[in-house]
């Protein structure tokens, strides 16, 4: 299949999987922000009341993340191979720290996702060990307890910085990959990418941060 074998096809898969991940990130943010309204337990309960839906959703997410990671690694390796020698002096004109480090910000995000799942989904990290003997987990309590730990909050904050970096290039980039771009939109997308990813970063960090400073308490 052309789409899986050609450079442009693979990049298209990156783009589509990236867009789906962005949609997920947005939905997830909406879900998480229920914490501010005290609905988070209801939200979690609602989700878990339909196990087949949850599992299908998880499988799809795994496929998306898998695709994104596989092709991300593959494309990066191909790109390194296509440019094996470095210049003694090189001045970048347009490439940014974000655009050049997509693989690293991406892999750190992947590592974070694993950690995040182990923590709040599988409940295997020490900070959530106390939930193991509970029949129904009080999600609100769990989140607030964990985020009272400054170390954990720092990890989350750093991960969101990675998300910011990844998406500040990722957003304009997927629009270009989809071909939805022209001379007028190029600069607009660049700014939009930074603004949207900064918003996502701040919005996500706001939850652990408010908990840490004690604005949200048990």
């Amino acid at each position: 299949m052309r789409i899986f074998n050609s450079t442009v096809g693979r990049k298209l898969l990156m783009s589509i999987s990236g867009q789906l991940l962005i949609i997920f990130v947005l939905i997830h943010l909406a879900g998480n922000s229920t914490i501010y309204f005290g609905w988070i337990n209801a939200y979690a309960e609602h989700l878990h009341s339909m196990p087949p839906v949850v599992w299908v959703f998880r499988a799809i997410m795994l496929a998306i993340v898998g695709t994104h990671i596989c092709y991300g690694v593959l494309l990066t390796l191909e790109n390194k191979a296509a440019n094996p020698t470095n210049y003694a002096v090189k001045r970048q004109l347009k490439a940014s720290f974000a655009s050049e480090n997509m693989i690293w910000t991406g892999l750190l995000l992947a590592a974070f996702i694993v950690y995040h799942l182990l923590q709040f989904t599988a409940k295997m990290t020490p900070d959530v060990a106390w939930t193991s003997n509970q029949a129904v987990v009080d999600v609100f309590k769990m989140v607030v307890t964990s985020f009272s730990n400054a170390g954990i909050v720092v990890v989350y904050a750093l991960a969101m910085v990675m998300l910011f970096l990844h998406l500040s290039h990722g957003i304009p980039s997927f629009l270009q990959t989809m071909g939805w771009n022209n001379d007028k939109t190029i600069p607009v997308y660049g700014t939009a990418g930074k603004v949207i990813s900064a918003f996502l970063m701040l919005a996500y960090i706001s939850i652990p941060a408010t908990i840490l400073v004690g604005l949200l308490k048990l």
Partner: protein
Amino acid sequence: MSAHTSNTMTITLHVWRQAGPNAPGKLEQYEAKNVSPDQSFLEMLDEVNEDLIKAGKDPIAFDHDCREGICGMCSSVINGVPHGGQVRTTACQLHMRTFKDGDAIYIEPWRAKAFPIIKDLIVDRNALERITQAGGYTSCHTGGVPDGNAILVPKPDADYAMDAAECIGCGACVAACPNGSAMLYTSAKVAQLAVLPQGKAEAAERVCAMVDAMQENGFGNCSNHYECQAACPKGISVKFIAKLNREYQKALFK
């Protein structure tokens, strides 16, 4: 003689010297003296070479021909930017007035896997040729074509095609790209021919064939860094890469 200034400059050059494709290479230092601000960059190199020849040394090999920014032959990375980083300017059009007395200039060849070094600053750009050979044309025969005005081309389309067609095939986009990708070069031809009615018929085959050729010839993928447009001496826009992507999607569903 100069209309503007008569004070000359001394410039220190660090030039990549490499005897052959497999020989080791390194930066060598040279002094360019009495450089006139009205001199072009290549004329400055000419004079360094004259001195080298007189000293019985091998002059610096570099590609050049038209010296007016149109043939696409000249190709050196100057202080870390292909063609030296002056907007819409080839190395041969770069003038020494953009440098200052006492400056150091680093001069290196295009670097990419698809462009093996032949000697010093000269690289083999045949890989670009093969991309064009894969489909960068309309398959019309000599003779037997309709009158030039038989098929109207809306002016915006003609202008768009011309913008894309300005590519001089120098390869600076590849040299600038962190991925050694030839997307800008490839997309310029794809876009030009896709927008013209004369090229539309084969648009799908063309974009697939050219993208495949790009891959087969060792070029990387596009990560949308846009280094290429910034380095391109003709200012070819990355909007043509977006166009290529659209054409490619159309071809996928064909």
